[in-house]
């Protein structure tokens, strides 16, 4: 468990109401890994992601992301983490480009950075000038990923990113995630599609009854 580990969770217990969604889960993720988290619905996949995103309080145990404690310095954790749930968090009335430049202003990124992020995520000029409301699900997802790049998020937490996409769309997303890892990010994807994760992940883990089980891939 070297100090450079991006995620360092030890015996974490997270309660949803009084139900231990995470019951003494332990996990470490190193920089540059692409981890796929599997498990049935309600087993705790989303809870694990939300914990790492600094969105849930810990009942017991410890959890540090990029060296920051998820409870105490929550703001620092959230600033370095990109969490993408089912909603893309975009402004439908604005164009994709305007959404990107808005986020650029919010995080204080320069114009060049915003443009390079757009290119990296395969957003051509035509798409950038289209209103988000008129984009396809896959294009919206790509815009949301581009925003993560603009935000320079070092840990990408994606909850079922492939939901609602056709085969082509899914391959595109996988390619983008590999690009993000290549560019130095660490990516954790929660997905319950078995064959999808085989090709994508450098490591696969499973959440069963609130605990984490390594299930293959690089150990």
């Amino acid at each position, binding site marked *: 468990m070297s100090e450079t580990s991006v995620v360092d969770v030890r015996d974490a217990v997270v309660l949803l109401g009084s139900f231990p969604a995470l019951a003494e889960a332990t996990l470490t993720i190193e920089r540059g890994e692409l981890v796929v988290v599997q498990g049935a619905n309600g087993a705790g996949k989303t809870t694990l992601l939300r914990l790492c995103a600094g969105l849930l309080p810990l009942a017991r145990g410890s959890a540090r992301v990029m060296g920051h404690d998820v409870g105490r310095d929550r703001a620092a954790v959230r600033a370095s983490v990109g969490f993408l749930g089912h*909603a893309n968090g975009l402004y439908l009335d604005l164009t994709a480009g305007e959404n990107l430049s808005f986020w650029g*202003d919010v995080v204080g990124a320069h114009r060049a950075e915003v443009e390079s992020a757009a290119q990296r995520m395969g957003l051509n000029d035509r798409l950038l000038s289209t209103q988000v409301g008129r984009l396809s699900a896959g294009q919206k997802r790509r815009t949301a990923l581009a925003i993560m790049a603009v935000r320079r998020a070092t840990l990408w937490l994606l909850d079922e990113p492939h939901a609602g996409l056709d085969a082509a769309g899914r391959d595109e997303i996988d390619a983008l995630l590999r690009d993000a890892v290549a560019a130095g990010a660490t990516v954790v994807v929660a997905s319950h599609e078995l064959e999808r994760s085989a090709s994508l992940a450098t490591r696969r883990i499973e959440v069963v009854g609130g605990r984490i089980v390594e299930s293959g891939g690089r150990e």
Partner: protein
Amino acid sequence: MSTSRVVGIARAVAAKDLRIEWRSRVMTNQVLPFAAIVMVLFAFALDNDGILQRVAPGLVWMATLFTSLVVVQRSFAVESADSAIDALRLAGVPSQGVYLGKVAALVVQLVVFETVLAVLALILYRVNVDLHGAVLLVTTCVLGSLGIAALAAVYGGLSVAGRGRETLLPLLLLPAVAPVLIGATRATESAFGSDGARVAEGWPWVGLLAVFGAVFLFGGTLGFGPLTDE
């Protein structure tokens, strides 16, 4: 979390809100024409210059109050459509910046609305305002809008957080902005010189608006984050 960062975020949020509003033109295509028609109809209904001049200030501010409901509703509907406001929070963007940005955008839209209405009132109801009166009017519009926007942004944020129905905003906002309605209307009456009111009498009311605006801008900056956070 330096103030310059918060100001930067506020500017970005305000610019984004105003660009969305400019693109959808709800204000210029629907809200303003509606208000203008109401002003004209009032002139038909009351058909007496004396009364019209007395009523004009109250009418301008009542129209502003109800317009603020529409503007706030839209301002936060845009945020919750694709959970954009959650994305901002999840990214650890300081809520003070988001709040101040929303308030600024609301103030701009309300002041534009009030200006058009006031000009309409001046023309339709043949009210004449001297320079001193005009300064009082502008100050009242800005401070009154600030007070309304500061509270509206908080309660608007509330309706996004919980599964709040839209009916919650008027119930919470309208009683609370009563002081703005009273203060701004009295100050506007002084500016219009309606019923012999002198301009100097308006300034104490502007003081009330300033206190109201300051209190809820401060309270809102503190309260908006926890209120909209999970």
